[in-house]
């Protein structure tokens, strides 16, 4: 008998608009020492499943039917107080955002100590000592001191370590980890995954790992359950799932992510994630599936064992019946697509020239400090110079706080620069008189990260898209209407959307609208700031493909900012790696990824996870956390984390120099 057995779990939410089934027909087993990964996108029901095990489904949700057996006992029939003793002691939770899940007004050590006090009856002093011990075991440096700190005084990675310490304190049998690393930077994520693996080995726990990220799941899980619209669609061992997926959804997910070694066009999943209140008939995935047949629209498939130990809810599982995605997109079609777009030509000309751009933000504007000349300033962007050439998309990549978003805002003149120049068509646009800025706006456009906040909520699509057309071309009447229709078609939408408000669209659709607004003035340059990072994987691929397609058809150039290496690899010809407000490396993407010169670039590429269960997590050599450039002194910004740093790196500031043709690196040791 397995440690955890879930059978036919059904969870609903009673909303004013009706009863919503968040989880349905969900069954799985989990043994001691094993890790089950639950994979899914928004609304797949993966988090609700986890909370149901703890009986913490929030109002107005409730568990309608099914059974959950843990260690031989049914959890759904336990009394409230018995359940309280199980939570934290037998089954514990690590949740996504460690800032939100820690009490902001209690010291870290006390929050860990509570586990010992209320479950094991320790005295206050003993609990404090045990907490410090536990913090040491999860790799918190200087645990005595840090246990007295409050959550906001700790970095994201340390907060998640505190949360893990809390989860392991009472030696539970099962740990539920709900997106444990999604809110963290890549390098920190790699550190934590290593920790989780190590602790699993030490404690022999069962782990339920919930994630949208196939990369993480492929490295940690033994078995995987894929969920879609509240139901499990595939359930199998991790190797089978990644090597020969059965369900078309699983297969599509695997191909929707850009891969490190490939720049060919992505194979996105059509359509959007369904609304749980208006589920499609038959198989819920059929409107988006690439191999739908008549049967799929009428009859919902049950989860069935197609191969030994591999279950799928599909009438026509891949490779067994009908075609698979791999066959549908043969390499020939991909090659044809590339040929159609044409390869990036080498005859590039400089279009936008950024020279010595710097921006500081003053912190702590307290009067006495200012009086004594003690200014704390964040050097968000520090002496950045580069050239954007025609026909080359420039990717800007870095971890949070590296200055990439500020850089985008500076070039757009949304934030005034302290120093530096941005030359475009013979003029320094940072010094244009305000009367001429409007003409510049026509040439340089932007797409922002969060499509939920980048469209004005009280304007219709028609109003939003008309504004640039009126401002820059004084269009009106039928000319305007024709152009609106053309713009919408260009991004894969239609005129029926014209009189709707932004909130009526999904995230992907909104981002399409934001893109069509940027296209309206037919700009020469589009600056895109993390345009896909808030979208689900299946939708990300659609938007990325749209960008590459439009770029070739409309002939604009792009600066594409992202924290995601594989996205950058997929979309950009050149890449700029930033750290602590400075450029570390700049060069052609393919070369930089193949042969990174700067130690930071190397480690960043190592830390990124491929969705591949066969290669283990690379031993992580990037210790510590990204630095925040507040009042930086001389020397290399990266020296504190660099594995090859020497004394000279801490004293001498490296200049960004061309170390090889087309490759600029800021490192003394290259």
């Amino acid at each position, binding site marked *: 008998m397995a440690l955890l057995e879930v059978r036919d779990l059904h969870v609903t939410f009673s909303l004013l608009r009706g009863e919503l089934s968040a989880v349905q027909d969900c069954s799985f087993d989990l043994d001691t020492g094993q890790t089950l990964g639950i994979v899914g996108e928004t609304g797949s029901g993966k988090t609700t499943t986890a909370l149901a095990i703890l009986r*913490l489904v929030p109002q107005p949700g409730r568990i309608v039917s099914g059974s959950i057996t843990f260690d031989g006992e049914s959890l759904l029939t336990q009394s409230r107080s018995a359940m309280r*003793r199980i939570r*934290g002691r037998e089954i514990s*939770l690590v949740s996504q955002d460690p800032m*939100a*899940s820690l*009490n902001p007004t209690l010291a870290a050590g006390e929050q860990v100590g*509570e586990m010992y006090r209320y479950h094991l009856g320790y005295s206050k002093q003993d609990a404090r000592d045990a907490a410090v011990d536990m913090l040491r075991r999860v790799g918190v440096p200087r645990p005595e001191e840090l246990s007295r700190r*409050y959550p906001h005084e700790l970095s994201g990675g340390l907060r998640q370590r505190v949360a893990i310490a809390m989860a392991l304190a009472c030696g539970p049998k099962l740990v539920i980890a709900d997106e444990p690393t999604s809110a963290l930077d890549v390098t920190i994520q790699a550190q934590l995954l290593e920790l989780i693996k190590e602790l699993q080995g030490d404690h022999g726990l069962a782990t339920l790992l919930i994630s949208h990220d196939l990369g993480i799941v492929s490295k940690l899980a033994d078995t995987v359950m894929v969920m879609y619209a509240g139901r499990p669609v595939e359930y199998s061992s991790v190797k089978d799932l990644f090597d020969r997926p059965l369900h078309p959804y699983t297969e599509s997910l695997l191909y929707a992510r850009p891969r490190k070694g490939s720049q060919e066009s992505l194979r996105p999943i059509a359509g959007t994630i369904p609304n749980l209140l208006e589920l499609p008939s038959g198989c819920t995935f059929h409107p988006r599936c690439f191999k739908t047949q008549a049967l799929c629209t009428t009859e919902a498939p049950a989860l069935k064992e197609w191969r030994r130990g591999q279950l799928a809810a599909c009438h026509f599982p891949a490779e067994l019946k009908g075609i698979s995605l791999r066959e549908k997109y043969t390499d020939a079609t991909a090659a044809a697509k590339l040929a159609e777009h044409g390869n990036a030509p080498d005859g590039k000309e400089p279009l936008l020239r950024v020279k010595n751009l710097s921006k500081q933000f003053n912190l702590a504007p307290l*009067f006495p400090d200012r009086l004594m000349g003690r200014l704390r300033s964040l050097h968000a962007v520090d002496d950045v110079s580069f050239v954007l050439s025609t026909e080359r998309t420039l990717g800007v990549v870095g971890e949070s706080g590296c200055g990439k978003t500020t850089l985008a805002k500076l070039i757009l003149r949304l934030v005034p620069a302290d120093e530096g120049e941005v030359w475009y068509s013979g003029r320094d646009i940072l010094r244009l008189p305000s009367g001429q800025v409007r003409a510049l706006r026509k040439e340089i456009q932007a797409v922002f990260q969060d499509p939920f906040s980048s469209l004005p909520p009280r304007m219709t699509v028609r109003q939003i898209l008309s504004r640039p057309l009126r401002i820059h071309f004084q269009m009106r009447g039928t000319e305007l209407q024709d152009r609106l229709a053309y713009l919408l078609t260009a991004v894969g939408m239609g005129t029926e959307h014209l009189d709707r408000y932004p909130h009526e669209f999904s995230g992907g659709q909104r981002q399409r609208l934001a893109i069509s607004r940027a296209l309206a003035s037919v700009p020469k340059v589009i600056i895109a700031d993390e345009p896909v990072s808030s979208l689900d994987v299946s939708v990300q691929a659609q938007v990325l493909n749209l960008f590459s397609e439009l770029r070739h058809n409309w002939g604009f150039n792009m600066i594409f900012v992202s924290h995601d290496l594989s996205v950058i690899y997929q979309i950009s010809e050149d890449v700029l790696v930033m750290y602590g407000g400075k450029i570390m490396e700049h060069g052609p993407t393919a070369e930089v990824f193949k042969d990174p010169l700067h130690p930071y670039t190397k480690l960043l590429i190592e830390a990124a996870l491929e969705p591949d269960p066969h290669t283990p997590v690379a031993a992580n050599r990037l210790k510590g956390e990204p630095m925040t450039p507040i009042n930086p002194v001389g020397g290399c910004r990266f020296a504190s984390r660099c594995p090859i740093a020497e004394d000279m790196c801490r004293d001498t500031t490296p200049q960004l120099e061309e170390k090889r043709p087309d490759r600029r690196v800021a490192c003394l040791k290259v």
Partner: protein
Amino acid sequence: MLNYAASRLLQVIPVMVIVTLIVFLLMSLVPGDPVLVLAGFGPEDRQGISQEQYDALVNRLGLDQPIHVRYFQWLGNIFRGDWGISLTSQRPVLTELLSRYPATIYLAASAMLVTLFMAIPLSILAARFQNKIPDYSAMSFAVLGLSIPNFWLGLILILVFSLHLGWLPSIGYADPFDQPLEFLRHIILPAVVLGAASAAQLTRYLRSGMLEQLGEDYIRMAYAKGLPELLIMFKYAFRNSLIAAITVIGLEIGQLLGGSTIVEVLFGWPGVAKMLLDGIYSRDFPLIQGAVLVLAATYVLVNLLVDLLYRWIDPRVRFS
């Protein structure tokens, strides 16, 4: 923390400058001849005053000086402790006000106690039993408390507890150190009347603060940790919403000081606010200026202390 305290103190200065300016300029709003007004005469008294006497008045009051010079002279006098002479009692305004000041502070402090003793239990009950009977009762109390003007509440309570039942005195004052029991009997009604609206406001604020906290991730985490429910309610939800409410409590003290004007008049409570009203009725302008200044300065000071307290208690802002 010290840095913050220092900068906060420095911020008070411009505010107090504008406050004194407003108090000073109040006089120029008074319709009629400022000479007569400031000397305590009515407009009809102009005939009875000879031109020499009038000129002497102008000179004595400094009204022949430009207005900014007069302001700085007045401000200088305030700092030196010379707040002018009350026109009605002919005694120094500052002495008069200081003798009344304790009564106002006792009343405001008692009303604050009433506020806290009502608001804290009511808000906890309301949040714990959201959309159930305790919640509805507490919220009805709160919205009524906000809607019933304190003078009418005072009238009703006097009608019931003094006139009808005869339990409590409707008017008067006793010194808390000489006659503590009498003092208690006299302060109950005024304190309840003054505190009711603030209690209602604070109940609403604390309740919604608690509900907000209860919806946070860290509360779900606390449940997932298996902590006892009472602990989660108090150490997590209530404690954090009270921290957020500290600034609101500071603002409510302003409501109490302002509301004391009516309550002191209604219950014949001999405080600064009652003196202010008496001054208004007898057109005793030096006294009016002094009383307004004292109440405003008290409020600014209390708010400063509350702000520092908040900085001290909330770890999220303590060190920044």
